[in-house]
């Protein structure tokens, strides 16, 4: 197992290299001169040039790239053009909300989706199945922000049950933390619920057609045991795969959700940084996201071994 993990980690190096290369040059080709932005509202051409020299933006791109990679390897992601703060610090202080939102969303999505998918597969082609799937597909079709506004309007503004916006770090107490995450996770979770519910249903349908389910039924086992143990455990691998894909997609959804609910996470940091051409921050963030994705894939792959005894590394 350990050697497998090590091999996998090495295998991700080229991917990360591609990401790094891509991000670096993408941003260098983007219009909008960071030096002009840094130099201020009424900067002269000379002061802009001075800033450019100071940031090393006047040097050849290859040299800039090498310098950047060299710093990266030392754990230095550079300094934000706007706030003059270290990129690592900017990312670190926004990590918790995004991780919390992602996990809680995943929890909501899975907690809704798996039962829906299981029931739909169990009652395949019946009314329950049609309704469950219609709900799931509609959840997917609904733009997250529209759903978010509807939820805010009722749960926060009308009934005042939950906060409208913001994020309470877990160190401010568990309940405020949970409270601040409920609406965003539900709004975002509904979208991913659809994805997971559909794959759960499909996977369960396939499993339910298998001989060993017939065996389990021929033993007169209770329905819940057949569905939840015999079937679901077998259906788990594709479901977990999709959950993994879901985490990657979630990051995109997180950007919008963080904006609507005003959660100070990585998503908003990225959008702001891209729109303001804060190169060092964008570079750092995209690397972090890519790294996270690689990590998630690894965890998913390892989890297969726990779900299916036939898989060994």
């Amino acid at each position, binding site marked *: 197992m350990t050697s497998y993990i090590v091999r996998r980690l090495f295998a991700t190096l080229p991917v990360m290299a591609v990401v790094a290369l891509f991000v670096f040059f993408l941003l260098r080709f983007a219009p909008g001169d960071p030096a002009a932005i840094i130099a201020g509202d009424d900067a002269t051409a000379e002061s802009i040039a001075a800033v450019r020299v100071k940031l090393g933006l006047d040097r050849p791109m290859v040299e800039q790239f090498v310098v950047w990679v060299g710093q990266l390897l030392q754990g230095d992601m550079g300094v934000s053009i706007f706030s003059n703060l270290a990129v690592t610090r900017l990312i670190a*202080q*926004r990590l918790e909300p995004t991780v919390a939102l992602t996990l809680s969303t995943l929890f909501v999505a899975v907690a809704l989706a798996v039962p829906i998918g299981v029931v739909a597969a169990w009652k395949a082609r019946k009314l329950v199945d049609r309704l469950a799937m219609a709900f799931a597909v509609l959840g997917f079709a609904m733009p997250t922000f529209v759903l978010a506004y509807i939820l805010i309007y009722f749960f926060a503004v009308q009934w005042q049950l939950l906060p409208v916006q913001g994020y309470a770090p877990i160190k401010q*107490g*568990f309940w405020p933390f949970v409270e601040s995450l409920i609406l965003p996770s539900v709004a975002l979770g509904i979208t991913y619920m659809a994805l997971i519910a559909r794959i759960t249903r499909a996977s369960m349908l396939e499993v339910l057609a298998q001989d060993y389910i017939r065996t389990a039924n021929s033993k007169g086992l209770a329905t819940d045991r057949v569905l939840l143990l015999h079937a679901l455990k077998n259906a788990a691998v594709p479901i977990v795969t999709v959950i993994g894909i879901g985490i990657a997609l979630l990051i995109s959804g997180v950007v919008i959700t963080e904006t609507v609910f005003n959660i100070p996470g990585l998503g*908003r940091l990225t959008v702001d940084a891209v729109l303001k051409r804060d190169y060092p921050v964008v570079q750092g963030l995209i690397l972090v996201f890519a790294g996270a994705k690689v990590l998630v894939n690894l965890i998913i792959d390892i989890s297969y071994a726990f779900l299916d005894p036939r898989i060994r590394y």
Partner: protein
Amino acid sequence: MFRRILAGALALAVPFAAADVQAQEKVLKAVMHADVRVIDPVWTTQTIANIHGALIYDTLFGNDGNQKPQPQMVGKYEISPDRLTYTFTLRDGLKFHDGSPVTTKDVIASLKRWGAKDGVGQRLMGFVTKMEPVDDKTFTMVLREPYGMVLESLGKSQSSIAAIMREKDALTDPQQQVKEAVGSGPYMFAKDQWVPGSKAVYLKNKDYVPRTEAPSSFAGAKIPGVDRIELVWISDPQTTMSALINGEIDFYEQPTNDFLPLLEKARGVKLMKTGKIDSTQGMIRLNHLHPPFDNVKARQAMYYLINQEDFLRTIVGDPKFYRVCKGLLTCGGPYENDGGSELMKEYNPKKALQLLKEAGYKGEPITVLSATDHATITPATQVLVQAMREAGINVDAQSMDWGSVVTRRAKKEPPAQGGWNIFVTTSGGVGSSNPVLHTWIGAACDKGLFGWPCDPEVEKLRNAFGMAATEEERKKIAKELQTRAMEQVVFLPFGQWDTPIAFRGDKIDNVVPNTGLAVLWGITKK
């Protein structure tokens, strides 16, 4: 499995639940119009940086609610009879947040840096021949001519305040931002708790010695009212409104006008009209460098496309909060006048096009920088573009976020090479009420603001205004200036409007109307 996860979650939760102890601290949560991204108020003209700066830095003078300069850091001062030599003595008890005393060295360095960067400061420094310390607490400022706006400039609240920093910070190149935000003001910046894009935190400066006079805008006693101010950034106005109604924030600086009826109805929420002249003025800026607007006839033709009611109704809606103003100086302000107003007598797109053609316009595309994410500038631009299209002008509306407009508008190249012809912006009414402080009215050619209007006559009148000794003289010059600037079309005004402050009346007290800049330090929590 689930049991194990649950147990884990609880184990995590328990120690944290106990950590909720800071509840006794009095915290003001305020949502301003923008996020604090730059901590150097001198380096940038952003209003939010100025709000930030006004919390942590002190100024030599502060303009009061009537825009009269009153001493703030200065204890006593003397002006020589020829109005050329100013002697300032700092009052006692001034200390920076790091504990070091404020000395005249700090002050002079700070004024020099400010004078190199800020427009008003540059003008002031243009008259200053030398600044010299007498001792640690006293210094002199010697002028070349009897410039009349010295104290007003030092006490101004809009664009960059004349913030007094430590000497070592003030020696930073004005083109670069200062690295540390250490001032001597009523609040201290908690840089370690700053999350750019989300919130900026200020802690009460317990060592601050306020003045004894009653507070009035930027003048008088600055008494820190709470232990902690959090400037929370919420980009979505509706979310901000809901958060205020839900009691999650205490103060909302600029609620969208359409929300006012909802806020008025909400329990606990109070609205406060901003100060008399603290309105927002809408401006359409033409680029004087490139055709067709390098021709004054073409610029004047644009007046026929401005129906202020259309703009104001679109931006603001309720007539209670807006006002038609066909002048360049704030209507309601001391220098309001009708000089040049007759240029804006009618909306007539046909005539506009006809005049443009007479001025040599041949149907080439006019590049309009169209901001997509600004509460007022975005709709105003849409109204303008529609009017231009109605006239039959070939409009090339280029959409971008406001930040990009800010970058793009600095480009002097022709529109086809990344420049522009028109952009829309706004200006604070307090600054716009004074011809010297109102930098957009200037016409200093290359040295002026984007659009680069170039007219020696306008500049001459602005200088004359600064030199004027009496109020009558000033009023007279203001009218001449506005007439000339309107003829030159330094910008096209499309009206002015008020944005009330919204806050939780049930939770906070001592909110004062704005005079150019939100005053937060005095707010107390119930």
